[in-house]
């Protein structure tokens, strides 16, 4: 019975959202507001409290009160008071006078994130991409591989030329390379557009599958 009701509610909300394709209407606005409200409530209670704050901070600081099973008798981990205080400082953003204190937490998070990202970006993204872009232009006995490598090397260089803005995109070498760069970028945007269309149609299939199979039992 519960499943049946949830399917009918899901179908109604789906149709409310689809109705926007005809024109804006109260049913669509109802679905939109409902989604915003339910998401906010769900994230605040289920995610932020029950999945983040409780198991990661409260259950470790006050195991007897918040943990269950064997973990309830574990010793409190007092190191977690530091991140707990840093988290509480963020709440001071609501006060006009004390909002500046929250910057300590922001600074800490930014420092850690930047430190990690600089190292990992260089080692895992920049260097492997450059290494794989260095290819032999002519591969003997394999014309297609040679063509593929030429496209990759010329395309990479041309795109980099296009994003070099300190000189005007003119002249036989610089101007033409920048033009090739634009073409390569346009092709990549086309690929991204095609992939996006594919993704959106997949989502539409998912919704129609729900309406026709789970709700109407037509298919």
């Amino acid at each position, binding site marked *: 019975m519960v499943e049946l009701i949830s399917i009918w509610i899901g179908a109604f909300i789906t149709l409310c959202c689809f109705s926007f394709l005809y024109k804006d209407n109260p049913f669509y606005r109802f679905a939109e507001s409902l989604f915003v409200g339910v998401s906010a409530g769900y994230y605040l209670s289920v995610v932020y409290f029950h999945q983040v704050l409780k198991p990661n901070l409260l259950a470790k600081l006050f195991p007897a009160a918040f943990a269950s099973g064997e973990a309830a008798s574990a010793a409190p981990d007092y190191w977690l008071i530091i991140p707990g205080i840093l988290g509480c400082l963020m709440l001071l953003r609501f006060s006009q006078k004390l909002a500046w204190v929250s910057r300590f937490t922001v600074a800490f998070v930014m420092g850690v994130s930047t430190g990690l990202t600089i190292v*990992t970006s260089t080692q*895992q993204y920049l260097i492997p991409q450059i290494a794989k872009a260095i290819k032999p232009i002519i591969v003997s006995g394999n014309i297609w591989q040679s063509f593929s490598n030429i496209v990759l090397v010329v395309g990479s260089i041309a795109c980099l030329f296009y994003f070099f803005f300190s000189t005007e995109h003119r002249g036989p070498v610089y101007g033409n390379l920048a033009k090739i760069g634009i073409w390569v970028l346009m092709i990549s945007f086309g690929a991204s557009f095609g992939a996006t269309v594919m993704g959106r*149609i997949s989502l539409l299939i998912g919704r129609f599958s729900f309406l026709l199979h789970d709700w109407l039992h037509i298919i």
Partner: protein
Amino acid sequence: MDIFLKLKNLDRRWVYLCVALSVILPMVFKFELPIYPGAAVKGIYNKIESLEPGSRVFLSFDFDPAAEPELGPGAIAIFVHMFRRNIKPIVGCNWPVGNEIAEKCITQAKEIHKNTFEKYNKENKLVKGCKIDPENGKDYVILGYKPGGIIHVKNLCTDFMGPYPQDKDGNPTDNMEIFKTANGKRFSMNDVALIISYTAGTNGIEAFISNEMFHKRPMAAGCTSVNIPRFTTYLQTGQLVGMIGGLPGAAEYESLVDHKGEGRAGMSPQSIAHLVIMIFIILGNLAFIAENRKMHKKKA
């Protein structure tokens, strides 16, 4: 030419209707189109085939219900493949709602595995030790959501029990059979044979790629169609052994594991809808050219 000019002013609602019909009609009047698995999908399949039975694979569900129609079918197909090969999935989530989706996918995969077990057993296609009903804690486990993304993954590289003292249902992970190691050390990312992340946005496979220097494990991704161009670069560099891109990727994997799921069912409406969109793009361009010509004629 006038017909193209009229088309330029076509009400967009006719376009929506055509696209909707192009999806609905192939679903109602079912027909199948051939599916040819590509190198990226075969990469994951072959990697799982090459793993020793009993190996543990870490799967990260880094998406929410909005991406489920694209990533769910691929995840189910991989679970089915793993259960048939007696490979043990350890599921984590970098996205909060990944928990519920992972549980749903495992339940469906167990059902498919159970229904096809006898057939595959008769054909000798199951590995030794493969169970008809995989058990939670022994043959698979869902650990649940942890915040932190890249930092959380870095933690897992040294120890699983610290971030995950309990699984998502509150069972202690310390005594679970799935986490037992030969040398008695605490289980870490170094003990998994493969990492797969189903990624819809940030904190997905890139969180694992960022930590490659710490775990040094082979990685693969399931991603939404929008992310395919972005993640193809990691295939090219060899950082990913394979990739399931969107619903077509899921259909390809389903055909490899001989399962007719939502991926394969979605390929006929997907193809027809693409065809309709291509026709509209061509018509739109013809209308644009027709309008330009008319304006030039007027000026002349």
